[in-house]
């Protein structure tokens, strides 16, 4: 790669993003796509154009796990490392690929957090593009293509196919939608009427927290400040979740209109879809759908013929950072910064993107809002419970015969769901992702609802063959990898928990170690800066209480064991001194 080529490409990318420093992350992502990495020699040029210091730019690159400097490898394969991918054999496949590629230095193989393909794994990303349904045969074929330097555009399209996998439709998915209908209804009713309808529907945020959508929109509507913003949180990063993938892929019209209805209510001019980097494959299609809306007069200027109703939507990509699903970290990321959650208050509704009043809603929430704008609150309330009206999309994966996307009315019990997806001999269900709850069979009569088991949509099933300790380790590793590192308890606590779990798994732990895990876990839960840290110890704390038997067989009966073998660690000293007599050894490993 010549210096001129780097300079030219950097210039083009920066111009495309208006040299605007709040678009720094987008520039870096596009530059990496164009040059296979971010050349260090481009940093000064970006710094001059964006007026952000080189150290600042490096700190952004250092935060997002997909970004890197190395431009020499034409292929970068990242295997999805969620427990459900692992259960389908992903680790063995990754090792197999690694061994196949040992003799060529044009590819790297590594792991990444859940890529949102739990129903069609094992999955991976190659240069950011999604690969599904991997098996040994395909890995061999991939290796052959990499050995001959075949560009991705010449790889079989079938390998990149992402299925919808809708297994059950209810209110949202079975009701037809006419393009433009939600915008039309919103303009006819007016902002206040729409807000009343939304309030009456009782719609609550589908990301997991369940904040009332009408209340969020009203707070923003009543906040002072110009240039309001609507953000769609499409950073679906919770391990085992993939239902937003479907909505973005096949129901994007409803999403676009839900955002536009929100813009009408709060008076926004700018909209963003913050699309997780793992869903890069959805970007071009989403862009063309947005363009079709503009062409139809349903986006951009004087929307649906209403003079002065101007609103447009941009797509921003993430780059491998789960924390950016937290709404204030997402806003920081939209501004081109490291995704560190903000101090609250102020809340985004009063001071969000570039300190403007901002509504951040999950994809499913905005889709539901569009449907409510058309069909009304009463229609929405025909399903669900009093406190959780409507339906919920679930992403079901793990040990069942029919993984995929299921739409259920709130209030549906786990028993019913497990029967539908044909799961048998179930040991546990992990609800709401790595940070969620691990539910034993004795609680399968409980139901999906904000008042019982709240979930963003992740539903992972583990049968009796599975070692739940591996699940706990997988989720704990996930939090170590995804902690932003800002606050002490989450940054250090998650790593300490990982070490203790490894000690348990290696059979060297005692009851004291479990007690220490409780102390650290409770500390991260109680003192962390944001929700990630507050829930990072959940996999351990939940299973210590509900599944103690997954720990107990690993414990030694003594009260204390060191994390290493004392005698073995003296080996180097013995070699240096040339001794191997009995006095140079510690009996019983040193304990």
């Amino acid at each position, binding site marked *: 790669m010549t210096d001129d080529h780097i300079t030219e490409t950097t210039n083009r990318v920066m111009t495309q993003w208006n040299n605007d420093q709040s678009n720094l992350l987008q520039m870096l992502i596009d530059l990496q796509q164009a040059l296979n990495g971010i050349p260090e020699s481009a940093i000064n040029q970006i710094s001059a154009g964006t007026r952000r*210091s080189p150290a600042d730019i490096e700190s952004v690159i250092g*935060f997002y796990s997909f970004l890197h400097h190395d431009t020499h490898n034409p292929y970068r394969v990242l295997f999805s490392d969620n427990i459900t991918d692992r259960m389908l054999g992903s680790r063995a496949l990754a090792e197999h690929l690694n061994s196949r590629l040992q003799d060529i230095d044009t590819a790297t193989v590594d792991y990444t957090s859940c890529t949102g393909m739990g129903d069609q794994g094992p999955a991976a990303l190659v240069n950011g593009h999604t690969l599904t349904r991997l098996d040994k045969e395909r890995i061999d074929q991939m290796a052959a293509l990499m050995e001959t330097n075949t560009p991705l555009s010449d790889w079989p399209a079938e390998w990149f196919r992402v299925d919808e996998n809708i297994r059950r439709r209810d209110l949202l998915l079975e009701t037809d939608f006419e393009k433009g209908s939600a915008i039309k209804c919103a303009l006819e009713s007016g902002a206040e009427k729409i807000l009343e309808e939304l309030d009456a529907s009782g719609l609550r945020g589908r990301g997991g927290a369940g904040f009332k959508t009408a209340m969020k929109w009203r707070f923003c509507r009543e906040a002072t400040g110009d240039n309001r913003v609507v953000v769609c949180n499409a950073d679906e990063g919770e391990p085992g979740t993939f239902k937003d993938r479907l909505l973005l892929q096949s129901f994007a019209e409803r999403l676009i209109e839900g955002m536009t209805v929100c813009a009408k209510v709060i008076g926004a001019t700018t909209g963003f879809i913050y699309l997780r980097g793992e869903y890069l494959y959805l970007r071009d299609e989403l862009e063309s759908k947005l363009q079709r809306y503009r062409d139809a007069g349903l986006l951009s200027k004087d929307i649906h013929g209403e003079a002065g109703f101007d609103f447009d939507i941009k797509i921003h990509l993430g780059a491998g950072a789960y924390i950016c699903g937290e709404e204030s970290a997402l806003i920081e990321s939209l501004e081109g910064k490291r995704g560190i959650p903000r*101090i609250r208050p102020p809340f985004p509704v009063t001071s969000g993107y570039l300190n403007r009043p901002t509504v951040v809603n999950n994809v499913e929430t905005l889709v539901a809002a569009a449907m409510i704008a058309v069909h009304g609150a009463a229609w929405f309330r025909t399903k669900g419970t009093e406190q959780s009206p409507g339906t919920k999309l679930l992403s079901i994966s793990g040990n069942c015969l029919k993984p995929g996307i299921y739409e259920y009315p709130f209030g549906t019990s786990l028993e019913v769901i497990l029967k539908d997806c044909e799961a048998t001999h179930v040991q546990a269900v992990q609800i709401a992702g790595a940070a969620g709850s691990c539910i034993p069979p004795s609680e399968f009569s409980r139901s999906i609802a904000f008042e019982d088991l709240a979930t963003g949509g992740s539903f992972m099933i583990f049968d009796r063959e599975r070692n739940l300790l591996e699940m706990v380790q997988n989720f704990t590793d996930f939090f170590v990898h995804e902690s932003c590192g*800002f606050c002490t308890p989450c*940054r*250090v606590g998650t790593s300490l928990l990982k070490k203790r779990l490894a000690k348990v798994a290696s059979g060297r732990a005692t009851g004291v170690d479990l007690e220490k895990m409780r102390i650290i876990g409770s500390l991260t839960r*109680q003192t962390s800066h944001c929700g990630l840290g507050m829930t990072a110890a959940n996999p351990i704390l939940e299973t210590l209480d509900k599944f103690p038997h997954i720990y107990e067989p690993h414990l030694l009966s003594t009260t204390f064991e060191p994390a290493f073998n004392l005698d073995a660690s003296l080996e180097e000293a013995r070699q240096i001194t040339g001794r191997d007599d009995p006095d140079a050894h510690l009996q019983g490993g040193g304990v």
Partner: protein
Amino acid sequence: MIRHFTIDGIKVPFQERQTIMDAAMAAGIYIPHLCHNPEFRPQGSCRLCTVKVDGRNLAACTTPATDHAEVKSNTKKLMAMRRTLLQLLFVEGNHVCPACEKSGACQLQAVAYYCGMLAPEFTHFYPQREVDASHPEFAIDFNRCILCELCVRASRDADQKSVFAISGRGIHVHLTVNSPSGKLGDSDFDKHDRAAHVCPVGAILPKHTGYDVPIGKRLYDRKPVSMVGDVSDHEED
């Protein structure tokens, strides 16, 4: 009319826009902290100032004071959590008090004494970190950095230089220097910068003066941090 809240039953007056920490400091009530310095925008990352406000755990330095709030700070439970937080900081870096020239004037050490932390009970990370001695008058010992970001804030907001930044993620987060070589000697850093005098630990240290004040006669040697206050209040520019 002056508004009040209570800390451990003591009535504390506060003004509009003050945080719990601001009001407590003004009233002479000590809440342990490391990343807070009233000169700069609070950030709430060390979490040592976690207090219970009407039943919720919140960082005192970032939580606005509210009328009639009941704040608990010096409880057994909160002190136990602070000790654990301190232990986390001690095992994360390489903090060897007896061999550290900052000993006795180090806020991490002083707060640990105040909270009753006797030993780091968790597995040490022993990270490999370098010392940057490239600057003629100052050195950075990254082994002792606790990521409070006070130097980052001071350099950006007070000095208008942005010499320091934070890079990496999670346990790999680290302090960086904005210069072509990444070394302090290559940066705009100056001994008169505010950023040179806000480090609560022995990470950013002036050269040639390490033992001018002998051990035993240092800031926290005779009085606890709760009475003496932050180390940066006692640094001469």
